């Protein structure tokens, strides 16, 4: 089970209804939240991907369960597309790649569980940004923490939160998963 914020039942509906309903449902969730769309129309996969691309929402992936296709879509927020990072300690994807397996580091993935489920850096720990404050105790203050998200924005905020709370060795990975070409794993 992938945790999502809203489930849309579009089972049994033929094109164009799955997209018509998705369009409505995405208006009802907050930016950053994940919508699960359940559909049986085979064409819905390609159409959702194309629609997401044209609107800027993030298509995460599709899981097939019997006849039902479960599509995962994350609503984009304007902030994500802006390239402003204020946490000063950053590391790029390539540098992180060479560290993996060579150094004792913690990769902290602060994206939504659905994003994490479809593709992540092997061994990465998942704490979505929204849960970071309450779950911070799962991390050690001395850990070498490398925070990653999709484009470096959420991880920037997470890195700031962590350093304010006294975590000493925190690096923000930029840009993050959107450009990650190293190894990945999924559920």
């Amino acid at each position, binding site marked *: 089970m992938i945790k999502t914020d809203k489930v849309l039942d579009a089972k049994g509906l*033929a*094109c*164009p*209804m799955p*997209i*018509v309903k998705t*369009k409505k449902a995405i208006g009802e969730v907050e930016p950053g939240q994940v919508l699960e769309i359940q559909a049986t129309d*085979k*064409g819905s996969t*390609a*159409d959702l*991907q*194309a*629609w997401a691309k*044209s609107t800027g929402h993030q298509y995460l992936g599709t899981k097939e369960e019997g006849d039902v296709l479960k599509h995962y879509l994350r609503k984009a927020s304007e902030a994500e597309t802006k390239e402003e990072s204020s946490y000063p300690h950053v590391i790029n994807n390539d540098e992180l790649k060479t560290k993996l397996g060579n150094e004792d580091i913690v990769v902290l993935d602060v994206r939504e569980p659905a994003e994490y489920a479809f593709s992540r850096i092997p061994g990465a720990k998942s704490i979505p940004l929204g849960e970071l404050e309450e779950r911070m105790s799962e991390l050690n203050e001395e850990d070498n923490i490398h925070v990653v998200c999709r484009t470096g924005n959420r991880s920037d905020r997470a890195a700031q939160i962590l350093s304010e709370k006294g975590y000493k060795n925190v690096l923000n990975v930029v840009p993050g998963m959107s450009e990650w070409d190293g190894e990945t794993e999924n559920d």
Partner: protein
Amino acid sequence: MALKEMTAKEVAQKVINNEKLFILDVRNEEAYQDWKIEGESVEIINIPYFDLIEGVDHILDQLPDDTEKLVVCAKEGSSKFVGEQLVEAGVENVSYLQGGMKTWSEHLEPVKIGDLKDGGAIYQFVRIGKGCLSYLVESNGEAMIIDSNRMTEPYKIFANEKGLNVKHIADTHLHADHISGGRKLAEIFGADYYLPPKDATEVTYDYNPLEEGKDLTVGNTKIQVQPIYSPGHTIGSTSFIVDDQYLLTGDILFVKSIGRPDLAGKAEDWVSDLRDTLYRKYKDLSDELFVLPAHFSKMEELSEDGSVIAKLGDLYEKNSGLNVEDEGEFRKLVTENLPPQPNAYQEIRETNMGKINPEDEEQREMEIGPNRCAVEG
């Protein structure tokens, strides 16, 4: 004015007759780029339906005033949805394609090619949406069907209308772009199903071997169907000479292009076979034979009546794939920079071997898209 319905048959007639038609294709861009309705008189634009959910006002200036406008999608739901909106916005002369691209992909248009010398005739079934060509030879109440499509109904209706007893069904090779209706038709008509044995080493059912030297007869004993072993597209590829007039080339030679040798994973091995078939074996045949291929790739290959046909002698002059003198050049042409392989071609081959038996709906999905069996010189 209400939204009208247009059948695949009507669209096919318009394409063949070069009647003006404006198409608004509302599928997603990828599907559109992969495959669309084409024709000399067809003007087509692509705007995905999901950009039209909130309204169509922003595209009205892209539609012509006078021409008939056809909205097309994958099945028909979205084209109806968009079509209704256009009608509401006051656009006149709007139709949607009944059954969408799925039905377009399956439409067969029978065209008479010509008479046989001793009575009887040969017909070409043009699958205009996918570029597949199949054949029916009839004489004296008997018939043979070659390279049939998955949709058996059009052949059945045709044979029943003419009161034909279909005796033989054959495939020139194991197809990779479409699912053969051969086995099913053989069952329906109680006919024999023929395949080239070299293409049938992995099939899971019984068949009759198609062998050079063993001619088949249809109706009148003088109507001969002569198999010619012509490898290259597949190792078993076999052509037919019908009534000493028509050369059915399968996927070896097309009107504007030649077959590709890679769809069974053996491009390098089969290049020399393909070369030998095209540059020696066919060359020894009469220039007067009419070539009838199993495919076309472009609408310009259709003649005025919708048929696809050319004289062998003319092809040796005009088809660039037959005019590559250098063997090395030829090898390059048919093994490098090939177009993408047909969609789901592996699964289609396995279905044709009888190894897998997908549901009807799945078979339909597998065949969506163009045939892509040719290489242009």
